C-alpha cells in the first residue's frame, strides 16, 4: 500500500463526534458557563495565539517599542525603582498563587461528593514500607525466624537408595505476627488461645493454617486502625491434618476473606467472605477506608498435560479492588479487572495499594497482551481509572510525588534512571546522580520529604543515601558510621553485626540491627540479636543521630542456648553441615 496525503486525509476525516456526543456537548455549551475549576493542565495551555502580523502592524509595534525604550532611558534610576516595585507586586502574586493552590488541595481532600458513593475522610495510613503496623501501645511485626531441627532423616544416597542419617535440618521460619511493647520490652505472639504452642495448627490464631496470609507476604499483612487489626487472607476450608503435617487443601476451595482481629489476636471475625480467589494482601488505610485487592479465580475442566503428565486445570482470573468503610462496615468495589473467560491466564492482583489524595494507586506487573503493565490510579471521586503505561511506581509516595525506574529498554541496555514524578501533573524528572549502576543496587523509596536509597552487599546495607525532593544528596554514609550502640555480647565470637533499613515513618528512620554468630565448620550463621533502633531523620542528616532502641525481635539468651545445643549435637553425631 502506498501512503500519500490523500490516503492520510481520507483516514483522518473519519474521526468525528457521534451525534450523541455532539448533542451532549452542544447542550452543555448552551448552558451558562461554569466557574473555572482550577483543574490540572489549565495554567499554560491557553496562551494567546495571534495570527502573524502584517507588515503595517509590525512597523507600528516596532515604533511603539522604540518610544517606550526612549521613555525608560529618560527615567534613569527611577526606572529601577519602578521595576523593583513591579517585582514586589509580581512576587506577591506568586505567593498568593501558591497559597491558593494549597487551599485548592486542602479543599479537594475534604471534597465530600463521590460518584462511587464513598464518604471520604482525612484519615491516612502513616506506614511507608508497611513492614510493621503501629498501635497506640506498640508495634506489630511479622517475625520470620529460621528453625533448626535435630533428628534422623531419610534421604536418597548417591546410589539412589533410601538411607537414614543423623542431620540438622533448617526450615524457613513461620511468620509469627508478634506484638512488641517498647515501654516494657516485652513481646507476644499474636495468639490468645490458652496453652497454645503455636505449632501451625488451626487452634493457633497466629500461625493457623485456616487462614494463610502470613506465608505470602514480606510486608506485615495487617493494618491497625481504630482499635483493631485488619487483614485480607485466604481461607482454606479443606486443610487436613496428617501424621506429617497439614495437607494442602484444594485451591479451588480457597476463598478470600476480610478478617478483623482484636489487638491481642483474639476474636477473629470474618467481616466478608468474597466467595472466590485468594487474599494475602495488606490493606492500605486511606480517607476512612481500608483498600485492598482480592485475587479472583475460576477453574474450568481439568486435563492432563501431555508433557508433564500432571493434571492441570483451565484457570482464569483477575482481581478486584475493594474499600471497607471503617465507620460503617460498608464494602464498595471500585474496580474489577474482569477476567477473560476464554484465556487460560490469571492477571495477578496488585500486592500493594497506595492511597494519595483523591486516588488509589496500584501497579500491574505481569499482565498479558490484554492487560498492559503500568501504574494505575482510580479517582475516588469520579471512579475513573487512568494508567501510566510501562511505569511502575515503587516504594512509597508522599502527597505530591512518587518514584519509578525508567529502564532504557529501547536500546536493550540495563541503563536507566530513577524518576521523580509529580503525581498531580504526571511530569517526571530524573533524580540527579541516581543513574543505575551495578554497585548500587536496590530501590529508593520516598517517605515524607525525603528519598532513601540503600546500597546492598549480599543482602545487607552498607551505605544509605538520603535525597531531598530537589534530588540533592543530603546523606551518603556507610551504616557502620551510624554509631549504633555496641552489641553487649557475652558470647565473644560475634563475627558480624549489620544493619538494614526497616521502615521510615513520621520522620523517623528505623533500622534492624542484627548480630550473627557464624560457624564456618558447620556452615551456619546464627542470629543472637535482632533489634530495631530508630532516630529522627533530621538528626541522621545532621550527623548526630541519637538512636533509641524500639524493641528486640529475639531473646539473645535463648538463642545462644539453642546455638550451643545444635553445635554439640553436630559434634556428637559427626554432622559436617546443616542441611536445609
Amino acid at each position: 500500500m502506498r501512503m500519500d496525503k490523500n490516503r492520510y486525509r481520507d483516514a483522518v476525516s473519519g474521526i468525528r463526534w457521534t451525534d450523541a456526543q455532539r448533542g451532549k456537548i452542544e447542550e452543555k455549551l448552551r448552558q451558562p458557563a461554569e466557574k473555572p475549576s482550577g483543574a490540572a493542565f489549565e495554567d499554560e495551555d491557553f496562551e494567546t495565539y495571534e495570527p502573524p502580523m502584517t507588515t503595517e502592524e509590525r512597523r507600528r509595534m516596532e515604533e511603539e517599542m522604540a518610544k517606550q525604550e526612549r521613555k525608560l532611558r529618560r527615567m534613569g534610576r527611577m526606572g529601577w525603582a519602578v521595576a523593583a516595585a513591579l517585582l514586589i507586586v509580581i512576587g506577591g502574586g506568586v505567593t498568593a498563587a501558591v497559597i491558593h493552590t494549597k487551599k485548592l488541595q486542602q479543599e479537594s481532600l475534604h471534597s465530600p461528593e463521590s460518584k462511587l458513593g464513598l464518604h471520604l475522610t482525612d484519615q491516612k495510613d502513616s506506614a511507608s514500607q508497611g513492614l510493621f503496623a503501629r498501635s497506640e501501645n506498640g508495634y506489630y511485626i511479622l517475625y520470620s525466624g529460621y528453625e533448626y531441627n535435630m533428628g534422623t532423616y531419610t534421604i536418597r544416597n548417591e546410589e539412589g537408595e533410601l538411607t537414614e542419617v543423623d542431620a540438622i535440618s533448617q526450615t524457613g521460619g513461620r511468620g509469627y505476627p508478634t506484638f512488641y511493647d517498647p515501654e516494657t520490652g516485652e513481646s507476644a505472639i499474636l495468639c490468645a488461645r490458652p496453652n497454645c504452642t503455636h505449632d501451625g495448627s488451626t487452634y493457633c490464631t497466629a500461625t493457623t493454617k485456616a487462614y494463610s496470609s502470613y506465608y505470602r507476604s514480606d510486608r506485615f499483612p495487617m493494618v491497625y486502625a481504630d482499635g483493631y487489626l485488619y487483614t485480607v487472607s485466604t481461607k482454606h476450608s479443606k486443610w487436613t491434618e496428617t501424621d506429617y503435617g497439614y495437607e494442602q487443601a484444594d485451591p479451588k476451595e480457597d476463598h478470600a476473606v476480610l478478617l478483623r482481629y482484636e489487638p491481642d489476636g483474639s476474636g477473629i471475625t470474618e467481616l466478608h467472605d468474597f466467595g472466590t480467589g485468594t487474599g494475602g494482601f495488606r490493606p492500605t488505610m486511606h480517607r476512612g477506608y481500608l483498600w485492598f485487592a482480592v485475587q479472583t479465580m475460576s477453574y474450568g475442566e481439568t486435563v492432563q498435560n501431555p508433557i508433564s503428565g500432571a493434571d492441570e486445570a483451565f484457570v482464569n482470573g483477575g482481581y478486584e479492588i475493594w474499600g471497607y468503610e471503617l465507620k460503617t462496615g460498608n464494602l464498595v468495589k471500585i474496580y474489577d479487572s474482569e477476567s477473560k473467560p476464554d484465556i487460560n491466564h490469571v492477571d495477578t492482583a496488585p500486592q500493594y495499594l497506595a492511597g494519595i489524595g483523591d486516588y488509589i494507586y496500584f501497579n500491574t506487573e505481569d499482565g498479558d497482551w490484554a492487560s498492559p503493565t503500568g501504574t494505575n490510579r482510580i479517582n475516588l471521586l469520579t471512579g475513573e481509572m487512568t494508567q501510566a503505561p510501562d511505569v511502575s511506581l515503587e516504594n512509597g509516595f508522599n502527597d505530591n510525588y512518587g518514584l519509578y525506574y525508567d529502564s532504557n529498554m529501547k536500546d536493550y541496555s540495563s541503563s536507566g534512571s530513577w524518576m521523580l514524578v509529580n503525581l498531580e501533573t504526571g511530569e517526571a524528572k530524573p533524580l540527579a546522580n541516581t543513574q543505575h549502576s551495578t554497585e548500587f543496587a536496590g530501590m529508593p523509596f520516598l517517605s515524607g520529604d525525603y528519598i532513601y536509597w540503600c546500597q546492598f552487599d549480599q543482602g545487607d546495607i552498607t551505605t544509605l543515601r538520603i535525597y531531598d525532593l530537589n534530588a540533592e544528596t543530603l546523606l551518603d554514609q556507610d551504616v557502620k558510621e551510624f554509631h549504633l550502640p555496641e552489641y553487649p555480647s557475652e558470647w565473644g565470637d560475634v563475627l558480624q553485626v549489620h544493619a538494614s533499613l526497616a521502615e521510615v515513618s513520621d520522620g523517623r528512620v528505623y533500622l534492624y540491627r542484627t548480630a550473627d554468630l557464624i560457624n564456618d565448620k558447620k556452615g551456619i550463621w546464627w542470629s543472637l540479636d535482632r533489634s530495631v533502633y530508630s532516630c529522627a531523620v533530621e538528626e541522621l542528616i545532621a550527623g548526630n543521630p541519637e538512636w533509641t532502641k524500639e524493641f528486640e525481635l529475639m531473646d539473645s539468651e535463648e538463642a545462644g542456648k539453642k546455638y550451643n545445643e545444635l553445635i554439640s549435637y553436630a559434634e556428637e553425631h559427626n554432622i559436617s553441615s546443616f542441611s536445609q
Partner: protein
Amino acid sequence: MLSKENIALYAFQKYGDTALQAAFCCIGNRADAEDVAQEVFFSLHREPRDFNDDEHLKAWLLRCVINRCKNLHKSIWRRMRVNMDDVPTAALTVHDSSEREVLNLITSLPQPYSEVVYLHDYEGYTIREIANMLDRPENTVSSQLRRGHQKLRMELSEEG
C-alpha cells in the same frame, strides 16, 4: 471582527470535528482526544473572547488543542491506548480496512511529527504558517514534516 453571543457553541459547531481530529492525530487515543477537544470548547465557554475572523478562530483552537496534547504527553497519566478496531463504528466514518490500518499508523506517529503532519497534510497549512502557529523555526517544521512522512511510509511498507 468575529464576535458571537455564544462563541464557544459557534466554534464547536463549525470546528468541533477539526479539534477532535487534531487531538486524535496528536495523542493517538480516541478517549483522550475527546477529553482534550471538548475541554478546549468548555474553556472558551468559561472565558469567551473575540477573534478577527473564522480563520483566526480555527488557528487559535488548533493551537490550544496542540498545547493541551503536549501537556498530556508530558504527563505519564494516560488512558490505555485504544486500538482503532475497538472504537465503535458509530464514532468513525471509515470505509475500508486499509483506512483503519492507516489510522492505526497515524496514531503511532510520535510527537512532534504527528502535529506537523496533521497541520500540513490535513489542514493544508504551509510550513511557514505551521512554524508561526507552533512557534518553531521553519527549518525545524520542514524536517519534522519530512521525517514524519518517512516514518509513515516505512511503517506502511513494513505492514504490508
